[in-house]
């Protein structure tokens, strides 16, 4: 019930904002929709507190009879956590938009954003592989258009590359899904095929090891491009840099969680034998990604591009946690997904503020901002410390659990992972030092007081990071239940 509303509300918002009548009040209308969506996600949270299996959280209808695809949603566990993340990040994104940033067609930007929120909400909530794929692909179109319309230099080439990469990946994923779908016929005597998540888990076990490996890699390709895991990442830094900053927030804050979520619930439990066979290789790829991205981040001059690499390093850790296939690793991954969503949004928000106040985001051209605006630099520092997983921040809980999970597989993985985390502290603290501390660089910029909306958004982010760092159980108590039921 509530899942339907969570998906339909942004869709209604999409159509409403496209109407010319709302051109003037686009911002207010958009904030109304994401705000209501956020409240709804909190209601879903409240319902989960009473009973995770209540009928208000589930819905199941026939959708396409010809292929037995269902509209099957369940708002609980990790899905709930990511739904809340999706709702909260979009509030922050829409708050960060400045007057006239998107010109006269501002309403189109908001509309596309809402469409994207709707598609990603669907990805997180659905229990049906077919609608999963539909939502997955649907989420690509609005972000592509946002990049194409409002992106920076060379946007045509970069967005095309982004589109093709992810599209190729997801087509292979679809082929893998269809193959599994045909195998679900073996599960019952009548030979009825189904797209249901639990049927996929059963059908996957019926495949021979060779089939499992082929299908595993086909589906993995789809998720790996989106995350991105190491050799499939080359679209990511360019795209993150070329998107308008709100688009980057959407991509890094929520969209890459789609890949991680898919890895967690649509791949690892479906084909466990194939994972077992390839686990070392996959962990190696993830951790190479962490180290590679951290080293690349060290040498960046553009703060936005640095964050793109940093984000890639962080998600490499998360995917390692998932691929460890242990309960702690998964707990850590689900915690870290939320934490990463919040602090990466905060960091790109900071990039936006740099551009707005000083007109540049080159690390070398900035300096001494702490002397100009102490409040901003304190908030930035907390978000930054959250991103390098200092204890008492939410990121710490996640990263700690992931490393515990990895140590269950083999101690050497845990050592490799924890040593690569240090690199994160290096590039983050170094860039903070250069941009915020020291003397004001002799360029003519000022850094005045923050606007109220920016201030409160940063406060909200900081509050999330610290509150959940102290009391991670607030979200973990739901995700743990789902994880326990899957990794028995």
């Amino acid at each position: 019930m509530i899942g339907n509303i969570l998906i339909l509300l942004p869709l209604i918002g999409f159509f409403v904002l496209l109407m010319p009548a709302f051109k003037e009040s686009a911002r207010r209308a958009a904030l109304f929709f994401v705000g209501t969506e956020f409240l709804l996600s909190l209601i879903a949270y409240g319902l989960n507190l009473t009973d995770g299996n209540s009928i208000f959280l589930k819905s199941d209808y026939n959708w396409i009879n010809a292929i037995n695809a269902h509209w099957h949603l369940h708002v609980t566990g990790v899905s709930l956590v990511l739904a809340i993340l999706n709702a909260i990040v979009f509030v922050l994104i829409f708050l960060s938009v400045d007057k006239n940033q998107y010109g006269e067609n501002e309403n189109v930007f908001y509309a596309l954003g809402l469409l994207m929120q709707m598609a990603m909400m669907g990805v997180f909530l659905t229990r049906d592989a077919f609608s999963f794929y539909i939502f997955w692909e649907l989420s690509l179109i609005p972000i592509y258009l946002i990049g194409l319309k409002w992106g920076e230099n060379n946007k045509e080439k970069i967005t095309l590359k982004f589109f093709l990469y992810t599209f190729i990946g997801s087509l292979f994923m679809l082929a893998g899904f269809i193959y599994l779908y045909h195998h679900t016929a073996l599960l019952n005597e009548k030979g009825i095929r189904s797209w249901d998540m639990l049927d996929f888990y059963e059908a996957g076990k019926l495949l021979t090891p060779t089939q499992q490996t082929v299908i595993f890699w086909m589906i993995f390709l789809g998720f790996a491009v989106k995350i991105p895991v190491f050799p499939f990442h080359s679209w990511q830094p360019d795209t993150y840099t070329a998107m308008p900053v709100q688009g980057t927030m959407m991509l890094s804050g929520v969209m890459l969680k789609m890949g991680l979520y898919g890895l967690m619930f649509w791949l690892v439990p479906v084909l466990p034998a194939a994972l077992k066979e390839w686990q070392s290789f996959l962990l190696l790829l993830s951790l190479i990604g962490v180290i590679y991205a951290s080293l690349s981040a060290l040498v960046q001059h553009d703060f936005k591009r640095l964050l793109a690499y940093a984000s890639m390093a962080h998600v490499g850790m998360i995917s390692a946690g998932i691929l460890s296939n242990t309960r702690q690793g998964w707990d850590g991954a689900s915690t870290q997904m939320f934490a990463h969503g919040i602090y990466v949004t905060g960091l790109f928000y900071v990039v936006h503020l740099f551009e707005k106040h000083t007109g540049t985001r080159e690390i070398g051209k900035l300096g001494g901002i702490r002397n100009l605006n102490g409040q901003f630099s304190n908030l930035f520092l907390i978000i930054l410390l959250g991103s390098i997983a200092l204890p008492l921040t939410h990121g710490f809980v996640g990263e700690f659990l992931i490393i515990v999970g990895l140590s269950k597989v083999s101690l050497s993985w845990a050592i490799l992972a924890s040593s690569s985390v240090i690199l994160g502290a290096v590039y983050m603290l170094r860039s903070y030092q250069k941009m915020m501390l020291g003397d004001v660089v002799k360029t003519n910029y000022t850094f005045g007081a923050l606007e109220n909306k920016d201030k409160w958004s940063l406060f909200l982010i900081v509050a999330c990071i610290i509150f959940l760092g102290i009391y991670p159980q607030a979200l973990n108590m739901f995700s743990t239940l789902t994880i326990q039921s899957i990794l028995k």
Partner: protein
Amino acid sequence: MMALLVIVIIGTITLLAEIFNFKKVIYPLSLIGILLALGMNIKEWNNNFSWRYSDNMVMYDNLALAFSSVLLITVFLWLMMSKNYFNDETSIIEHTSLVLYSLVGAMLLVGFNNLVTLFLGIEILSIPMYVLAASNKKNILSNEAGFKYLIMGSFASGFLLFGIALLYGASGSFNLSDVQLALSTDIVPKFAYAGIIMILIALAFKVSIAPFHFWTPDVYEGSPIVITALMSTIVKTSVFVAIMKLFLWYFYPAYNHYVEVISILILISLVISNFSALKQQNTKRLLAFSSISHASIMMLLIISDVRNSSTVNALLYYTFAYSIASITSFAVIHFVAKDKDEQINVLKGLMYKHPFLAISLMIALLSMAGIPITAGFFAKYYVLSQLMVSGYKWMIIVAILASILGVVYYLKMVLAMFENDKKSENIAIQLSRNEWLVIVISVLLLVVAGIYPDIIAYTFKQ
């Protein structure tokens, strides 16, 4: 069956317009006639009409009714989009009646049960098309297109006749049930197989499967754009029904003799069409190659070796999705380019000049590229999932790779729309009410069929 008669009658009435001087009403008359025919189709559903007087030459069962409805919807939208093609007082009668007669041929082709009706259908469909392709008399390219189409099409008809003759020689009958019976015996002469291949060649020519596709880009480019739109929709739909009926059902006993030939044809055309389309600068040529690519994907149904309602559903859905997307994209290009050359450049900056047209064209192109939630995605999905249980699983990979190339060239047009073109900012595009309506209807059809595909893909139940 009544629908066919209605269209024939309307077509004949338009010929009389010159004598009785009612030229003004023939455009609305043909629109009403098509709606009437559509109503007849709905009324006759489940009647299984068959023309007993002439050896069941025409059989209007549910299959024929469903596909002829797709044809009628397509032509209805087409007539609405190409109203200015019928503005010219001197040629309105020829234009209208030729279009209606080619529709008659197409409708005959979805309901044939006899090799003679097959030939008649193909010819009634094609001959008006030859004339229409050359209907822009003052344009040398249009003349070339008509001439080329005529010459090449006549060759194809020759092949078709030769094939029919060989099959007749082998079975002693034009009736396809008898032909099927003859093919399933052991004593059937070997030249019957040659006949089947010849018919295959002729039909492959009509739907432009490589290597019989060479006429397509030139004819598509040379013809007036509205005729290109007509050509790429109703010809494909109707001839594919013929191909499905012949090569999946009637010639089934000889299936193993030709299935490999078809698979090679598909492979060649998937590769040639998609790679050639990458380099095109003219929208009509690009869409010509895209139509070859779509034809080869539809052809995959033949090698799937599945003979039940799901194949028919898949073809019905594909032809519908493809026809509507084609009509939409040709319509937008037609409205934007007006009388200019239809290079991709004319789309430059369309997003800023006329967002409505740009978004519609984008949805149509995304549908052709097969991206959810548009109808084109489900069309491709149904075809490829049919293939999943056949012996040609590897063809799925080829088709997927081909679709990826497809995305590249469709997005090339989308990119052009987003490019900022300062120079031609002042040329305003104005749409009449008809033109608005046709775009709105077809985009709605694409999206609704994409969200709830059951309305079409569940027409024939098990």
